[in-house]
C-alpha cells in the first residue's frame, strides 16, 4: 500500500497550498499597505498646506512665502475646456458609431483596437504631435495647443466608455422607438443616447479627470505662465505643470503649494472614479425592464 508515500504527498500538497495562500496574502498586504500609505501621506501633507489663499492668489516671487495657485487652477480649467470641446463630441460620436452602426463589423473591431492601443501611448508623444502641429506653424506656445494635445488624448477614452454605456441600453428601447416611426438618427440621439447619458457623462468625467492630471503634453505646448492668463493664444499655467515646477525647485514654500495642488488633483480623481463606479453599479436604466 502506498499509504506512507501518499500521506507525505498529501502533506506536501497541503503545505504548498498553505504556503502559496500565505504568499498571496503577503503580496496583497505588500501592495495595498504602501499604496494606501501613499494616499494617506498625500492627504495629510496636502490638507496641512491647503488654505483659502491657495485658491484665490497668484504665485509670489521665489523665496517669498504665501501666494497660491489661482492662475494654475484657472489655466487648467481653460485647457480642459478646450480639450473637452475637441474630445467629447468626437469621442461620443465614435462611441455611437461603435455601438449603433458598426456592431460586429471589422471596421469597428479595428477602431476599438486602435483606441485601446492609443490609450497606452505615452502622453508626451501627444504633446510632441501638438507642438509640431500647432506651436511650430504659429511660432509661439499657446493654451490652444495644450488643449488640442489633451483633447486628442480624450477621444479614445471617451469613445470606449461611451460605447460600453450605449451597449448597455436594451434593444427593445431602440426597436420601440423605430417602431413608432422615428427616423434612425432621432432614435439614436433622443432615445438611446439619452438613456445612456448618465453613464456617458460619467465616462467623460473620467476622461476629464485623467487628462486634468497630465503634465507631460503641456510642457512644450502650454508651457506655463507665472501670471494670470486666460488667453488661448498665450502660454498658460496648469495645475500639474505648476506642481512639477514647484516640486523640482528648492523652495520650501513652493513644496507646500505643490502638496496642496496634488490634493486638489486627487480630490478630482476620487470624485470621478467614485461617480463612475456608482453609475456603473446602478445600471444604465433605473428600474426599467
Amino acid at each position, binding site marked *: 500500500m502506498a499509504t506512507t508515500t501518499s500521506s507525505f504527498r498529501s502533506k506536501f*500538497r497541503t503545505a*504548498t*497550498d498553505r504556503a502559496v495562500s500565505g504568499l*498571496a496574502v503577503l*503580496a*496583497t498586504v505588500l*501592495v495595498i499597505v*504602501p*499604496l494606501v500609505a501613499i*494616499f494617506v*501621506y*498625500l492627504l495629510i501633507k496636502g490638507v496641512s498646506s491647503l488654505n483659502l489663499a491657495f485658491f484665490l492668489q497668484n504665485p509670489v516671487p521665489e523665496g517669498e512665502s504665501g501666494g497660491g495657485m489661482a492662475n494654475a487652477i484657472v489655466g487648467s480649467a481653460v485647457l480642459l475646456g478646450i480639450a473637452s470641446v475637441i474630445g467629447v463630441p468626437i469621442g461620443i*460620436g465614435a462611441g*455611437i*458609431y461603435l455601438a*449603433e*452602426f*458598426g456592431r460586429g463589423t471589422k471596421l469597428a*473591431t479595428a*477602431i*476599438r483596437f*486602435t*483606441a*485601446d492601443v*492609443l490609450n*497606452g*501611448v*505615452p*502622453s*508626451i*508623444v501627444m504633446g*510632441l*504631435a501638438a*507642438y*509640431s502641429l500647432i506651436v*511650430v506653424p504659429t511660432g509661439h506656445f499657446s493654451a490652444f495647443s495644450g488643449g488640442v494635445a489633451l483633447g486628442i488624448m480624450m477621444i*479614445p*477614452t471617451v469613445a*470606449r466608455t461611451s*460605447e460600453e454605456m450605449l*451597449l448597455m441600453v436594451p434593444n427593445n428601447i431602440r426597436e420601440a422607438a423605430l417602431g413608432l416611426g422615428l*427616423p*434612425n438618427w432621432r432614435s439614436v440621439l433622443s432615445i438611446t443616447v439619452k438613456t445612456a447619458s448618465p453613464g456617458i457623462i460619467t465616462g467623460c468625467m*473620467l476622461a476629464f479627470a*485623467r487628462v486634468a*492630471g*497630465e*503634465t*507631460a503634453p503641456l*510642457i*512644450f505646448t502650454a508651457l506655463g505662465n507665472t501670471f494670470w492668463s486666460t488667453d488661448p493664444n498665450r502660454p498658460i499655467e496648469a495645475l500639474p505643470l505648476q*506642481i*512639477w515646477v514647484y*516640486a*523640482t525647485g528648492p523652495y520650501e514654500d513652493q513644496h507646500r503649494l*505643490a502638496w496642496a495642488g496634488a490634493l486638489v*488633483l486627487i480630490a478630482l*480623481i476620487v470624485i470621478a*472614479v467614485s461617480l463612475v*463606479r456608482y453609475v456603473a453599479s446602478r445600471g444604465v436604466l433605473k428600474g426599467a425592464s
Partner: protein
Amino acid sequence: MPQSEPSAVRKFLMSRGNSAFADRAFQMLMVICALSIFGIVLLILSELMLRSSLAWHNFGLRFFFQPPAHDANLGETGSYWDPVNGHFSALPFIYGTLVSSLLSLLIAVPLAIGLAIFLTEMCPKFLRGPLAFVTELLAAIPSIIYGLWAVFVLVPLLREYVNPLLVKYLGWTRLFVDDNPTGLGYVAAAVILAIMILPIISSLTREVMTAVPHSQREAVLALGATRWEMIRVGVLRNARIGIVGAVILGLGRALGETMAVTMVIGNTPEISKSLLSNGSSMASVIANEFSEAVSDLHRSSLIEIGLALFIVTIIVNAVARILVWAVTRGAPANAH
C-alpha cells in the same frame, strides 16, 4: 379597382417626408468621428516623422546605437548626448528606459499576480469591493503625484535605508555600486514604476482570471486538488496567455512613463552598469530638454526619440491587447 384616396395615416407619413438623407448624413458623421481615431494615429506619425527628418538625415539608423564622439581637442571620448557639439546618440536613453522598465517588472509582476490571485480566489466577499476600488483609484492617480511622493518620501527612504543595504549585501554582483548616494537613479525609478504599473497588471490579470469558466475550476477540484492546485491548473494555465498580455501591457506603460521617472532617475545621459547610479530614460530626456532646446538638430533628435517611443509603445500595446483578447474573447477592455 379605382385608385382610392390615400388613407389619413398614409397622408400623415408622406407629409412627414423621407428621413433617408438625415439618416445617412448622421451615419456619415458618426463614421467620420470613428475614423478620427485612425486619423489621430496617422497625425502623430506624420507630424513626428516630419519634425525628426533633420535628425534622421544627419544620423540615420546609427542614431540609436552610436558611441560617444571622440573629442579631438581633449583627446577623450565625449558624451553620448552632446547638444553643444551636435552629437546625439539615443543609446543611454534606450538603456535607461529598458533597465528601469525591466527592473520594475521584476518587482511588480510577482506582487501583481499574487494580488490578483488573492482577489479572485481567496478574498472574502466583503473585502473584494473595497480592495478593487482602491486598486482602481490608484491606477487613476496622475504620474506627477507619484513623482511628488517619490521625490519627497521614496528617494530619502532609499538613500538612508535601502541603498546601503543593497550595496552591503548585493555589492558582490557589481551591480550595486553607489558612488554618489543621492537615492536617485535606476532603482528609484524602478520602484516608483513598479508601484504605478501594479494596479494595471493586477486588474487585467483579474479580468483574465475571471474569464476562465468555472467549469474548469470545478473539474480540477472534483479530481481532489487543493486550492493552490486548482488555481495553478484550472485557472492560471488557461489564463496564461492573458497574464502574459497583462504583463506586457504593464511594460508598455512603464516604457512610456514620463513625469515620475523624470523626477527620480537623475537625468544623466550616461550608461552605467550600477543600478544605483543616475541615468536617463527616453521620455525623461524629452521632458527635461525639449522646452530649452536651442538648435534645430537638438529638437529634431528629441522628436526622433519621441517617434521611437511612439512606435515601440504602439507595438507593445498591440501585442498585449491581442494576447488579452485571446483569453477574454473581445469583451470590452477597460479603458486603462
